[in-house]
């Protein structure tokens, strides 16, 4: 489908109409300055410039808690797998979070396919909303290559001044545009305005990382003994907030819940956090990452080295949620730059 134009005033109707066939999740201001993804029935223009939500929209694909199995132990043991999913639209997702979902797609399809995630993913349409200005001080999407996005959404809307220039990427996206919103085909003038705005925004998004992002695995491979981990060991509270708010953290715990009859129950998974003390502890007492510094080092390596090496793309999408939510102000960019600078300083000394 050709690029189309959707008027700003029609977005609310779009959102409303989609509810005929989907549950629609969009952004809501929970308290002043604190935004969340939640079920919405209309789009509010005041939210066009929202700061990253407290939790990323991954919660609709990989929920905080999720049932994997149901079982009965009487009269004899029976086990059924549970995959809960419903048709849903994520409305107004930022490029950073779309990148985040794209990375989760890689994780849950590689090595072994995770049907609980993939079923939800297949039932999900993503309506992106592009960013023309940095949304807040912690954003560093451009530094990790996650501002520009050309894939991973069904439609992407860009505000070109009262009207949204809309790129339709998938057949499902075309279907919802045709069915649920008034639109016109974009003309040459609008296309040029769109391209110019996209190109002009580059200067407003600084590169905050002091090397090319693709170099980061090399720096981190050599940073196991970097003093930054000792320093962070003393500051980090080991609370796990950085994990919980991250769009690309996917580690989980698994536990059983019996119902009151004690004869049937559920097996569930729940978000876990690699910065928590017992994450890598075994029942015989050993803990393979026994300090907060080691656990944070692991977390940073997952974003900038281990997964980045395996998938050849940064697993930090630059949303800045970890920095914003850290109770002791551990800053992802400062930490990455400390690793780079300590490495370079060591080299100069030697």
């Amino acid at each position: 489908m050709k690029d189309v134009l959707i008027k700003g005033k029609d977005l609310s109707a779009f959102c409303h109409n989609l509810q005929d066939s989907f549950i629609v999740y969009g952004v809501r201001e929970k308290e002043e300055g604190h935004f969340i993804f939640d079920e919405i029935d209309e789009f509010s223009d005041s939210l066009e410039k929202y700061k990253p939500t407290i939790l990323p929209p991954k919660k609709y694909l990989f929920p905080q808690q999720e049932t994997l199995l149901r079982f009965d132990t009487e009269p004899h043991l029976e086990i059924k797998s549970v995959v809960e999913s419903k048709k849903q639209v994520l409305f107004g997702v930022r490029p950073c979070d779309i990148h985040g979902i794209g990375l989760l797609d890689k994780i849950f399809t590689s090595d072994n396919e995770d049907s609980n995630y993939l079923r939800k993913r297949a039932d999900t349409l993503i309506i992106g909303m592009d960013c023309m200005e940095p949304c807040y001080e912690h954003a560093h999407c451009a530094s990790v290559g996650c501002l520009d996005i050309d894939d991973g959404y069904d439609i992407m809307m860009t505000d070109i001044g009262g009207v949204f220039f809309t790129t339709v990427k998938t057949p499902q996206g075309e279907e919802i545009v045709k069915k649920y919103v008034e639109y016109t085909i974009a003309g040459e003038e609008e296309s040029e305005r769109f391209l110019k705005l996209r190109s002009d925004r580059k200067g407003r998004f600084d590169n905050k990382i002091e090397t090319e992002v693709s170099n980061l695995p090399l720096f981190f491979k050599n940073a196991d003994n970097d003093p930054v981990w000792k320093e962070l060991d003393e500051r980090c509270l080991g609370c796990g907030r950085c994990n919980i708010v991250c769009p690309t953290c996917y580690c989980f715990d698994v536990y059983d819940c019996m119902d009151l009859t004690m004869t049937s129950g559920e097996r569930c998974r729940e978000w876990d956090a690699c910065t928590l003390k017992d994450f890598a502890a075994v029942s015989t007492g050993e803990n393979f990452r026994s300090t907060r510094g080691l656990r944070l080092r692991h977390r940073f390596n997952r974003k900038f080295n281990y997964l980045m090496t395996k998938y050849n793309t940064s697993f930090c999408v630059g949303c800045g949620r970890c920095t914003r939510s850290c109770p002791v102000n551990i800053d992802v960019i400062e930490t990455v730059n400390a690793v780079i600078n300590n490495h370079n300083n060591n080299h100069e000394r030697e």
Partner: protein
Amino acid sequence: MKENNSLFLPEIAEVVSTRQLTEMERYIELKIKDTREFNFNPGQFLQLSVFGIGEAPISISSSPFNRETIGLCVRRVGDVTSALHKLEVGACLGVRGPLGNGFPVEKMKNKDIVFVAGGLGIAPLRSLIQYVIERRDDFARITILYGAKNPGEILFADELECWKQRKDIEVLVTVDKPDENWAGKSGVITRLIPHLDLEPSRTYAVVVGPPVMYKYVLLELQIKQIPEDNIIMSLERRMKCGVGKCGHCQINGIYVCLDGPEFSYHTLKFLSEAI
């Protein structure tokens, strides 16, 4: 076969026999309900479910040539393993697996094999030892070193005795803390290695034991000049999913469940959190 492709759906197995080995360890023999042949490689593991309690990863301890039943040696250390100890014959439980890769038996063919088993490390090694005994002609010299904390904690003592009787296998058992009835060797397992007469280029050392054991045993094996590729270790880590998703068993960039649990020292020495 499974009804659907959920990674997390166990098959149902029935306990066909149990044997209390020590106060802490119980041997449990299972049969998968739908009676399919169960094929696995020595060193692979299962996720065992006691429903309502949870799931735990346990190494398979029986011979891979026994395709009817599966034997596991379970140490009682947590909720799931305590519940496993209480299962009687006829009880049903959930099984996912076999998971992991197992020992590189093909590469080990025609080589001298030294087994180094510390404590419960004998559990996964027993499967490999039984494989090697069954295919005895495929391997050259076989040496089994086994160390336990005290005589009461020796696992599979009867089988160790049988292996010892064979002319084609050397078995050395030591205990850290002997009692007055112990007539065998005493001291940590590491002390057995210097006395071995090894031909480094044709020797595979297969080492399984508690985490603390590895670095000491590795040093002795390196003194013996065993090539790094020929030192194979099986690692214990916290695991929740067993299929490379949950993140708990990760060591640097690798997942123990997917990429292991057996690794050569050559692989592990580049992983800062491995040993």
